[in-house]
């Protein structure tokens, strides 16, 4: 469960996030939808305590990233926009590294990787060095790496960036699986179909502010539009940054 209230962050004169509030419940997928540069990544970075907010409040399962950064990091699984893998390590070693950083035992790590290899279908490349991996393979490793400690809250920044159709389908199935397991999932994206296909709740962010918040049906009802795409354009007031 994530509660965000009136979050603000500026870089010099640029107001990247200007009063964002939303909630993300357990067992739901919450989508942060917005054009490029709307402040989605900055919001997520404050959630996983890599950036301190200038103002506002964040509570993740009752913990505040400013006070309990270490505790929060233990309960979070994050696939950031930067998914750099270590190319001289195998996929398994990449995942095990994060498991060790989370303080898991050798046995726990092996067991967990075994499960992840099955759910994410990684058997073909789990023991290969990640040098030369396809985007789809990279995202799978990045997800496995983020999920190795079975986090309650999962943050995904533009997860389907650069993925082909098959990989995107596999990814969506996996994220739905996380929802059924009762986890709280937040994903940011600028792709309409992604939210339409996946998200229970949609938070539309534009120019650092929340333009609208609700289920897909609620957003359609509020704008009187037939499609989510029209609703989105109406809500953010422009077609800027609308790619999909």
């Amino acid at each position: 469960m994530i509660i965000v209230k009136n979050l603000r962050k500026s870089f010099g004169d640029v107001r990247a996030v200007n009063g964002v509030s939303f909630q993300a419940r357990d067992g739901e997928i919450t989508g942060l939808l917005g054009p490029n540069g709307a402040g989605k990544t900055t919001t997520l970075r404050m959630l996983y305590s890599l950036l301190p907010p200038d103002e506002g409040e964040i509570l993740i399962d009752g913990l505040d990233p400013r006070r309990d950064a270490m505790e929060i990091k233990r309960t979070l699984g994050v696939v950031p926009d930067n998914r750099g893998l270590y190319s001289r390590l195998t996929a398994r070693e990449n995942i095990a590294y994060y498991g060790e950083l989370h303080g898991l035992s050798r046995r726990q790590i092996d067991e967990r990787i075994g499960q992840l290899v099955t759910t994410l279908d990684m058997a073909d490349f789990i023991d290969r060095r990640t040098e030369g991996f396809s985007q789809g393979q990279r995202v799978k490793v990045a997800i496995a790496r983020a999920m190795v400690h079975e986090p309650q809250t999962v943050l995904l920044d533009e997860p389907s960036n650069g993925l082909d159709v098959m990989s995107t389908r596999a990814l969506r199935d996996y994220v739905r699986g996380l929802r059924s397991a009762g986890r709280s999932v937040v994903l940011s994206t600028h792709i309409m179909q992604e939210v339409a296909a996946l998200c229970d709740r949609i938070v539309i962010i534009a120019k650092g502010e929340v333009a609208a918040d609700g289920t897909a049906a609620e957003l359609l009802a509020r704008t009187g539009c037939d499609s989510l795409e029209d609703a989105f354009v109406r809500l953010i007031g422009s077609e800027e940054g609308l790619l999909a």
Partner: protein
Amino acid sequence: MRGLTTVFRKEVRENIRDRRALFNSLLLGPLLFPLLFVGMMWFLQSAEQERAEQALELPVVGAQYAPNLIRYLEQQGAEIQPEPDDPEAMVRNQETPVIIRILPEYPERWAEGLPAPIEVIMDPSRQESNTAIRRVKGLLLGYSQRIGSLRLQMRGVSPQLASPVMLKDVDLSTPKSRAILAVIFLPYVLMITAFTGATHLAMDTTAGEKERKSLEPLLINPVPRWQIMTGKMLTTTAFAMASLALTLVSFRIVLPYMPIGAFGMDLTLGLMTLLRILLVISPVAILAAALLTLLASFAKSYREAQSYMGLVILIPMIPSLIFMANPIRAEAWMMTVPLFSQNILIGEIIREESVALSWYAMSVSSTLVIGLALAALAATLYNRPRLIFSGS
């Protein structure tokens, strides 16, 4: 501390698989420097020998004024060449290293028993001509002394009267201590090795991690940032130390093959000597790792980091160069200056002089204090978001 050791183990494993890291840290220094040095000594030695054994070709101006001298020079093996048109130009154009000119007043002054003038035309700023100059001057001086002695004898005076003082060398240098003349460069090479051994790792673990975009995900793990940085610096230090140890071993193997001629040097580095040198130099590895990591953390990419490193590599050279250009007597205060103290101590260790334990302690602790202070500063760098996200 769990995070720290995890980072350390992962960085070691990853970099052992990196050909560039292995080449830079474990091959370049240990192999290149010793071979380069011994090779250079071979070359110098053989070039010098060649010049010394070569027939001395000596153009002479005014040979007709001193036929006796010319005969003497020929007996001594010089090949007298005919008088050139413009001797100065010939020397200046490096056609010949040295020419002697016997002045017209030579016979007259000779007959009167006055010093008879001979000019030695040379350009000593041309290093390669120094051997020839030395040989010619030696021959002329020998001739002068011989004639001087003969003249005294003819007047019934013992030539010994002209040598009122007799010099005798009492040489206290030992084969070990003379060895430092041949290995004066060793502290210098080791100091550079500490830095070159650390450079690639320092850049790869910081700027490289940022460039590969793996820094942000790494920092999301529940490990304090100082532990992550310290784990990285430990890896860098370990590689620098390995580089130093291998370089020392490689010198131990190679040094006995050095052409040391007739100097009578003992160039074997004993195990204790090696360990002592390693003990003295290891704080430098820590200092280098911390300093280089600190700098590389500001860079957005490996390439940007590389552009800083060119300047940093000058730092370890400065004390060695000062010391080589202007050798000074070691004093206690010098032990507090990092890099400088190691230079002095390594010299003393190779000479097998006994060095006060307090000197070791001062050198090690002063360098450690500065190294650890830099490391502490570097360890906090990733608390600044700007450094994490720059370039991403």
